């Protein structure tokens, strides 16, 4: 059976971002337990973010060692994958400040995720390198269930992780494409498959735009809490268009299988690939809008290129 301890460290100095491809519960534990225990032996801070069933499985297998590990529910902290980098950034800061090295486990692309979520998981994995390369040294192991995830997802993980581990061993990924962040951000989203309501807005239309979105959200049966969240998201995103996206934008609304979708487009370009993923500093005047939308909404897909910026907000029905 493969254990990580059998393999040399590829890079002790920087951020090590590694995909672990496992099969079945045994394969999951065989990959994870040595990684976690090695961290504990080295007195590193070990933080595991997994969906709840996997958390329980790992906790049971760790026995007494579980008390030394921080467990996070990935389905909660990473419901919208665009929130996860912020969680790791805070965790890294906290443990680095305390003088301890961080060792993380994060399974964002867990089995049961919707297709659109898995698309965002892939972008998230790619952006992790952009976010943490060149920063403090820490390791992040990302398990992928080879038995149950679509092949496109596991194949994509080879493009987003510089290191991969399988039963065959731990090695640098020859398919890694860490430089493809801007291309990934520019990749078009799947077009709507159903009828779309569309409108335009300018500087004087922000209140009307948010009211229109709220009205639509009520009409398609969202709860009042979801309506309020979408209204707030609409205000923030339309304001961004007016302030930073050429002064105007387009809102499109439709329902697709399992989701109410509201999409904001404008002619601006988002230059920071991590926009909205990291908590802005308290002194910073702007930059909170997309961050807030990421935190409050079920799924947010941001794409930006020379042709403009699109922010698609999905609310699960």
């Amino acid at each position, binding site marked *: 059976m493969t254990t990580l301890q059998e393999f040399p460290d590829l890079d002790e100095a920087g951020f090590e971002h590694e995909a672990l491809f496992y099969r079945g519960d045994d394969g999951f534990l065989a990959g994870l337990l040595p990684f976690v225990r090695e961290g504990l032996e080295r007195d590193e801070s070990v933080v595991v973010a997994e969906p709840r069933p996997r958390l329980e499985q790992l906790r049971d297998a760790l026995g007494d060692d579980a008390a030394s590990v921080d467990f996070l529910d990935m389905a909660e902290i990473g419901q919208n994958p665009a929130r996860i980098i912020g969680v790791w950034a805070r965790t890294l800061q906290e443990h680095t400040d305390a003088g301890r090295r961080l060792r993380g486990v994060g399974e964002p692309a867990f089995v049961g995720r919707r297709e659109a979520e898995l698309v965002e998981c892939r972008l998230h994995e790619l952006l992790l390198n952009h976010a943490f390369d060149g920063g403090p040294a820490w390791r992040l192991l990302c398990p992928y269930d080879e038995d149950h995830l679509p092949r496109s997802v596991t194949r994509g993980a080879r493009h987003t992780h510089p290191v991969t581990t399988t039963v065959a061993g731990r090695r640098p990924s020859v398919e890694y494409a860490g430089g493809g962040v801007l291309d990934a951000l520019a990749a078009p989203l799947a077009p709507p498959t159903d009828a779309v309501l569309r409108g335009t807005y300018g500087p004087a239309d922000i209140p009307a735009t948010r009211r229109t979105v709220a009205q639509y959200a009520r009409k398609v049966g969202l709860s009042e809490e979801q309506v309020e969240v979408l209204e707030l998201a609409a205000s*923030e995103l339309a304001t961004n268009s007016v302030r930073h996206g050429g002064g105007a934008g387009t809102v499109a609304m439709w329902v697709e299988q399992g989701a109410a979708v509201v999409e904001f487009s404008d002619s601006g370009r988002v230059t920071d690939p991590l926009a909205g993923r990291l908590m802005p500093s308290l002194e910073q005047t702007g930059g909170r809008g997309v961050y807030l939308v990421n935190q409050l909404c079920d799924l947010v897909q941001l794409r930006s290129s020379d042709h403009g910026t699109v922010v698609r907000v999905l609310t699960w029905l």
Partner: protein
Amino acid sequence: MRAHGTLSDIPEAGATDHVCWVYENDEAFDRAVAEFIAGGLERGERLLCVGERVIESLRGVHLPAQDVATLVAAGALETQTLAEAYAAAGTFRPMGQLAYYEAATRRALAEGYRGLRVLAEVSALAADPATRPELIRWEHVADDFIARNGGFTVMCAYSGTLPQEALSDIAAVHPFVHTPDGVPPFRIFFDDDRIVLAGSVDSFSADRLAHVLAASPIGAAGAVLDVSLLEFADVAGCRALALWARGLADRSLPVEVRGASPLFRRMWDVLALSEYAAVGFEEAAA
């Protein structure tokens, strides 16, 4: 809670309120003057009319029982041009104005009136960008005085021809607002010991909110901000509140926020605004 809202008609006599009345034309203004004064007479209040435009309107006003000249002669109605009002209350500074109107209200009560009813047309002060900030501060300070003391009723009349920016600034600091063209995004007023924020605050009105809050009179016990009438606030609105709270915290003045919606609380947490400014959240008082 103190009466508040948007108005289509002059409030009934008996209300001790702070009304912003934006008039669309001379006829509408004259009608408002007549109704507001008649309301004061019905209640037995002393009347003080400030501004050339009000004085002009009084010349043609038809009152139910007495004419204007009789009322002036009896001391029941006084008029002041803007220049006279400055001379009476000192340069246009909120605290000077407040001291003057406090004394005038006390005098009216002492002389057997049920209070002092002021009708002011000060569009000129609102039109001038140099005097508008002081005017806004005065309106806000006056509202605190009106909320805490019975016997002082004010209607501030402004011409609908003022720039929208000026009208929004002015309307924001009145609990009662009448405007021919829609309602202001938010209103901020006092209710006993609370500051009440009503309506919507977004990126385009957050600076206005910040300016008004900066002028809020805050006692030694700190501030209580009631947001139970706040229908919508975005990130910029929340940040304006956090900045205000931090400014007060720097002066050792605590801030309590009442009636915050679950989404407001959630937004405050997500944006880590509690690290910015310590704010106590309480449920709205019944």
